């Protein structure tokens, strides 16, 4: 088992989706608990990649391919999990999007991908998302956290607009707000009353985990 776990982690680190699904099938073949395969096999590989990304040793393509490998493995394991009536523990529900007026997608998508890989249920609203759509999605999903991305210096102010709109809708106390994007900063987060700021996708996972734990 240890050998298989290590190979699973390695497949995710190397970003090899086909190898990852092959290992997932092998795990099912030997009767391994699919949840154990995820949590002790594939997921630790994702942790290594996240750390490397935060340190500047790995870059976007590495992160994307590793997340693809993780997804491929989960797709193979899911039917067996359903059969066993198992569920990966959902750490929390997150609504995420790039704010209105801003069409930059890559950073936001990376954060969404990393959150999903780490066990969060993520609703990705895409780009150029109006404050009302954030509010509606928070209400519909009963989200724990909402993530607001902005790359442009001019659209940064719309992060605040979403927070104000959440307040008006009476939802601000139920949901934590995390912001990110090149011009954003911890000071900006504080100024507009956001609960957290993250500089990259790895940090975002840590911040969201902390916010969700603080809530429970």
């Amino acid at each position, binding site marked *: 088992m240890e050998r298989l776990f290590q190979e699973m982690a390695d497949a995710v680190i190397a970003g090899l989706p086909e190898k990852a699904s092959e290992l997932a099938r092998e795990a099912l073949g030997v009767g391994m608990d699919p949840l154990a395969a995820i949590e002790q096999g594939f997921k630790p590989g994702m942790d290594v990649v996240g750390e490397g990304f935060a340190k500047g040793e790995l*870059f976007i393509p590495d992160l994307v391919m590793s997340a693809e490998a993780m997804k491929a493995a989960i797709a193979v394991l899911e039917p067996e999990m359903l059969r066993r009536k198992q569920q990966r523990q959902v750490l929390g529900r997150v609504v995420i999007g790039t704010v209105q007026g801003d069409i930059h997608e890559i950073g936001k998508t990376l954060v969404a991908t990393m959150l999903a890989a780490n066990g969060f249920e993520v609703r990705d609203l895409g780009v150029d998302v109006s404050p009302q759509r954030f509010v509606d999605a928070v209400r519909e999903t009963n989200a724990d956290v909402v993530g607001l991305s902005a790359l*442009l210096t001019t659209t940064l102010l719309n992060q605040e607009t979403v927070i104000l709109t959440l307040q008006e809708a009476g939802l601000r106390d139920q949901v934590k707000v995390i912001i990110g994007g090149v*011009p954003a900063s911890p000071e900006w987060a504080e100024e507009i009353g956001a609960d957290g700021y993250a500089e990259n996708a790895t940090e975002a996972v840590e911040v969201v985990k902390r916010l969700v734990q603080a809530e429970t």
Partner: protein
Amino acid sequence: MRLPILERLAAGDVLIADGATGTMLQAAGLPAGTPGEAWVLERPEEIVRLHRAYVQAGSQVILTTTFGGTRARLKAAGLDPQVAEINRRAAELARQAMGDEGYVAGDIGPTGEMMAPIGKLTTAAAVELFAEQAQALAAGGVDVIYIETMSDLNEARAAVEGARQACALPVFCTFSFDTHGRTSMGVSPAQAAQAMAELGVPAIGANCGHAPEELLDILPQMRQAAPEAYLIAKPNAGLPRLVKRQVVYDATPERMAELARRYIELGAHIVGTCCGSSPAHIAAIAAVICGA
């Protein structure tokens, strides 16, 4: 009448490019979220005014307002049906402001989509997008196709290929090294320089990026990997900071001029500035270069 830009560079001349377009147009009233390209057709006088301000400050090379001028990028604003018209017109406006003595660089930025295998954009589709834009820029009379802010080597290669399919103009290419000294896709300055040298791109460099001081490390790496290439330095005017709810870039014109002097010492042949800069930054750089 001007000499071809490559002849000027071969003669050892240092050329001054322009500064920010997007942040300047926003200061002139371009609404957040509206791309500058929209004003090429709607408010051409504003585009010409900005180009003129740079020319008066000393810019000898100005970039067309077409950074987001690929069909893929224009689509977000519903401007994709006008892709040819916008690029051609933007080139004409830049020429109108520059006159016949200086150079107009046809600006091409990334498509905004990720290339396969990590994204969906195929090389063939990317080449087609860039060729379409380059063709319209060439029709508008640019002197050079100027690819910038690249982070993916394959996308940069596709842009060079597209430009070459579309026209016979020289093609320059610069990258944004904004992530721990590499591009966001992990490309090092040496890798970028080498790949462009292999394609025979005569002028390469760094634009946008993180702190402008980082170019002092980046330029020598590019030079070492591609000693024959002319170097371009066009960084942001410092890092963005929020002051009283306004985003400001923290490098003064004097600071950028001092850095420009050092870029030239490191072998840069074309110097300019990117996000957060203004004609004042270019004027300060021009004063340093002309006084040197």
